[in-house]
C-alpha cells in the first residue's frame, strides 16, 4: 500500500525522487508547512540565501554548470516577486530551473490576502510553463511534469505555485511518484529531418566561404563534442556567441573568437563575407546581427535549433533543421564522413585555403591584445586582470560574470576550451547574477575552481550573499574589476552623449571592499598596478586560500572602453577597433 503523506511531505519526497540535492530558498508564512517537511529529512539540502533573487541565480548557475534543473523555494507575495528577475534571466538564456512558490490558501485567492500575489500571472511572460496546484493529491504529478518540461526541448524555467492549505500536515494522501508523464500537447522534437540534414550537408560541402556560428544551444544541448568534430573534419572557421563560448575550444586554430557587438574583427568580418553560415543553437540576437537588413548579404543560411520558433524569426533560413543539436550533428557527421569516403575532394581544401588566408588578414588587423601594447605598470587594465586569472587557473575554471564592461573583457580574454564553464546572463543582462551563480556552481562542484569576474556596480546588487558564502564556507574567488563607475553606461555616454556622465559614477561613495569581505570572514585583497596584480593573483589561487572565499578588488583604469565595438545600426562589417578610432567598414573586402 502506498505511503500516506501530506502535501508538503509529498512535495519534498517528489524532489528527492527527482534526485534533487540542493534547494535554494528563503522561508515565509505560505511556505512554512513545506519548510517543516524539509526539516524532517536529510536528502535534499536546503541552502538559506539572503535574497530570493539570489536563490534563482544560484539555481540557474547550478543548472548551467551541471545540465540538471536547479530548484528554488520561496514564499508568497514578496518572496515570489523577488524571484521574478531570476526567472526572467533563466528564461532568456533557456536554462532549466524550477521555482516553487508558496501561495495563500485556496479560499483566500483573489481576496488581496496578506502576502498574496498572482504568481502565475506575474511570471507568465517569463516562464516556459507554470502550475497553480489545485489539489494536494496532484503535487507529485505536477512536480514530475515541471521537471520534464523544464529540462526537455528548449529548456526553461517552470513555476509551481502551491497554496498553503494543499500542504497542510494534517491531511494525507497516498504517495506515488509517477515514473513517466504524458503531455499530449507537448512533444519536443527528438530527431532532425533526414532530408533537411542531407540538404544542409550538400550546402556545407559546396561552400567557398563558410562560417559555423554557434550559441547557447550547443552548450545547453551537450553538443560541443560533435560540433568540434564536425568543424575539424570540414576545417571550417567557428565563432561563438556570448552564450556559446566553450561550445568550441577557445584556443583552437579554427576559432575566430566571439562575434557580435564586442566580437572580434575577424569573426564579424568572416560572417559578413561568408557565402554559407551554419547557425547551431543560436538565435540571431540583435547583439549579434546588428541591423538585420544589412546582415551577411551573400550568405545562405542553415539554421539548426531545437525550438522551431527560433528559426527564421529574425533572419530567414534557407535550410531550417528542427531538432536537438547533438543528435542532428551526429547524423551530419555520418553523412559528411560518407561523402568524404566516397570522394576525399568533397571538401575543396584549396578554396577553403584562400578563405583562411583572408581570415588570417583580418586576424592580423586586430588581435584582442591591441590596446595593451603601449601601457605600463599603471593604470591597471581590466584585460590584464582577466589574462592573469586565465593563466593562474590554467584556463580551466568555472567563470561566472555580471553585466557590463567586465563581462565583455571576461568573454574576450578568458579562453574557454570546455562547455558549461562560462556562465553569464547574456539574454536579459542581469546585473547581480555573477556572485549567486558562482555559488550555485560551487555547490554543484565543491572542489572545482570557481571565479566570479564582476564589476563593483553589479557586485553591489547581490553582495548580501557574502553572508551565505560564509554560512556554507564557499571558496569562490571574486575578481572585482573596479572602475568606480557603471562602466558600460559611461562608455556609451562617452561615445554617444558627448561624454556627459549622467548618473553613471559614484567615485566617492564606494565601500572599502577589502574590509567588507573581511567583515564576512572572507579574505580581501586590493591591487592598483600590474606589479601588485602579479603578486596578488598567485596568492589568491594558492593552496593557502583553497578553502577561503577571496575577494580581489582590482582598481583598474576608469577610462578604459571595450573594443572592438560594432557601429550602431550598421552591418557586421562595420566596427570601431580602438579608442577614438575611425569606423572601419570592411564591406569591400579582399575576398576573391
Amino acid at each position, binding site marked *: 500500500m502506498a505511503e500516506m503523506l501530506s502535501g508538503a511531505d509529498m512535495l519534498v519526497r517528489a524532489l528527492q525522487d527527482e534526485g534533487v540535492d540542493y534547494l535554494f530558498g528563503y522561508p515565509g508564512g505560505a511556505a512554512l508547512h513545506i519548510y517543516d517537511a524539509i526539516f524532517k529529512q536529510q536528502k535534499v539540502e536546503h541552502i538559506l540565501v539572503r535574497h530570493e533573487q539570489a536563490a534563482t541565480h544560484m539555481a540557474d548557475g547550478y543548472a548551467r554548470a551541471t545540465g540538471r534543473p536547479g530548484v528554488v523555494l520561496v514564499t508568497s507575495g514578496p518572496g515570489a516577486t523577488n524571484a521574478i528577475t531570476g526567472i526572467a534571466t533563466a528564461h532568456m538564456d533557456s536554462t532549466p530551473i524550477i521555482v516553487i512558490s508558496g501561495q495563500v490558501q485556496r479560499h483566500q485567492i483573489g481576496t488581496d490576502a496578506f502576502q498574496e500575489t498572482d504568481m*502565475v*500571472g506575474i511570471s*507568465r*511572460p517569463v516562464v*516556459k*510553463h*507554470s502550475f*497553480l496546484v*489545485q489539489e494536494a493529491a496532484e503535487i507529485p504529478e505536477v512536480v514530475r511534469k515541471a521537471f520534464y*518540461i523544464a529540462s526537455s526541448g528548449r529548456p526553461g524555467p517552470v513555476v509551481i505555485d502551491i497554496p498553503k492549505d494543499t500542504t497542510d500536515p494534517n491531511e494525507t494522501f497516498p504517495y506515488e511518484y509517477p515514473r513517466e508523464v504524458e*503531455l*499530449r*500537447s*507537448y512533444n519536443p522534437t527528438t530527431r532532425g529531418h533526414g532530408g533537411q540534414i542531407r540538404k544542409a550537408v550538400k550546402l556545407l560541402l559546396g561552400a567557398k566561404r563558410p562560417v559555423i556560428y554557434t550559441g547557447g544551444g550547443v552548450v545547453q544541448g551537450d553538443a560541443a563534442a560533435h560540433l568540434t568534430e564536425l568543424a575539424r573534419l570540414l576545417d571550417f572557421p567557428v565563432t561563438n556567441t556570448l552564450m556559446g563560448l566553450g561550445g568550441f575550444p577557445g584556443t583552437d586554430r579554427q576559432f575566430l573568437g566571439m562575434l557580435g557587438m564586442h566580437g572580434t574583427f575577424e569573426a564579424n568580418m568572416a560572417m559578413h563575407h561568408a557565402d554559407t553560415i551554419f547557425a547551431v543553437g543560436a538565435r540571431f540576437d540583435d547583439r549579434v546581427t546588428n541591423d538585420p537588413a544589412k546582415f551577411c548579404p551573400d550568405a545562405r543560411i542553415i539554421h539548426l535549433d531545437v*525550438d*522551431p*520558433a527560433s528559426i*527564421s*524569426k529574425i533572419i*530567414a533560413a534557407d535550410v531550417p533543421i528542427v531538432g536537438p543539436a547533438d543528435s542532428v550533428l551526429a547524423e551530419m557527421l555520418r553523412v559528411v564522413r560518407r561523402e568524404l569516403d566516397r570522394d576525399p575532394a568533397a571538401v575543396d581544401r584549396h578554396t577553403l585555403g584562400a578563405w583562411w588566408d583572408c581570415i588570417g588578414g583580418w586576424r592580423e588587423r586586430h588581435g584582442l591584445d591591441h590596446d595593451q601594447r603601449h601601457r605600463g605598470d599603471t593604470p591597471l587594465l581590466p584585460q590584464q586582470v582577466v589574462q592573469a586569472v586565465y593563466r593562474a587557473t590554467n584556463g580551466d575554471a568555472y567563470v561566472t560574470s555580471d553585466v557590463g564592461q567586465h563581462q565583455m573583457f571576461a568573454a574576450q580574454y578568458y579562453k574557454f576550451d570546455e562547455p558549461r564553464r562560462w556562465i553569464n546572463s547574456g539574454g536579459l543582462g542581469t546585473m547581480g547574477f555573477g556572485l549567486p551563480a558562482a555559488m550555485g556552481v560551487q555547490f554543484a562542484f565543491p572542489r572545482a575552481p570557481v571565479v566570479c569576474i564582476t564589476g563593483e556596480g553589479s557586485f553591489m546588487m547581490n553582495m548580501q550573499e557574502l553572508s551565505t558564502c560564509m554560512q556554507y564556507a564557499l571558496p569562490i574567488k571574486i575578481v572585482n574589476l573596479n572602475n568606480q563607475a557603471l562602466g558600460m553606461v559611461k562608455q556609451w555616454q562617452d561615445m554617444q552623449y558627448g561624454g556627459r556622465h549622467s548618473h553613471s559614477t559614484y567615485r566617492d561613495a564606494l565601500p572599502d571592499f577589502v574590509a567588507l569581505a573581511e567583515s564576512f570572514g572572507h579574505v580581501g585583497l586590493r591591487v592598483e598596478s600590474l606589479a601588485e596584480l602579479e603578486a596578488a593573483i598567485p596568492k589568491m589561487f594558492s593552496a593557502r586560500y583553497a578553502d577561503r572565499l577571496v575577494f580581489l578588488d582590482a582598481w583598474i583604469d576608469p577610462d578604459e572602453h571595450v573594443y572592438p565595438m560594432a557601429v550602431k545600426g550598421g552591418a557586421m562589417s562595420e566596427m570601431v577597433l580602438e579608442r577614438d578610432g575611425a569606423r572601419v567598414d570592411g564591406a569591400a573586402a579582399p575576398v576573391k
Partner: protein
Amino acid sequence: MTARRIIAVLLENEAGALSRIIGLFAQRNYNIESLTVAPTEDPTLSRLTLTTAGDDRTMEQITKQLNKLIEGVKVVDLTDGDHLERELMMVKVRAEGLRRAEVKRTADIFRGQIIDVATDAYTVQLTGPSDKLDAFLRAVGSQAVIEVARSGVAGIGRGDKVLSLG
C-alpha cells in the same frame, strides 16, 4: 503583405490556458481582432478561434509561438486553405416611423431576424462572415445603429479537413 488571418487552436481546457494565449499576443505585439473560445465535444479541450492580421513572417511566428505553449494541443491557420467562417451579431437599430419598414427590409435582404422590438428600435440578429455583418451596418447607416454585440469569428475547415487530436 498584411492579410487577415483566422487561426484555430485546440487547447487544454485548464485554468490559465486562455490567459497564456492572450498574454502571448500582448507580449509579442501581435494584434487580435476577435477571439472566441468555448469547450468542445471533448470536455478536456477548448477550441479558440482568433482573427489577426500580419504578413507571412509574422503569421509563421504567431503559429510557432502558439504551438510552443505547453497547453496548445493543435494550431492551424484556417486561411491557409478552404474554410468557413461565421460570426453572430445582435444589433439594436433605430426604427421609428417610416424607418421601421426600411430596417425590416434591410434585415430581410441580409437574412437577419428581428429578435426584439421596442417602440422606436429593432434588435436584429445576423450571422455570416464578418464582412457581411459589416455590410449590414453600412446599409442601415451609423446614425441608426444604437448598440452592437458581436460574437467574434468561429471558423472551420471545408470538406474532410479536421482539426482534432489525431
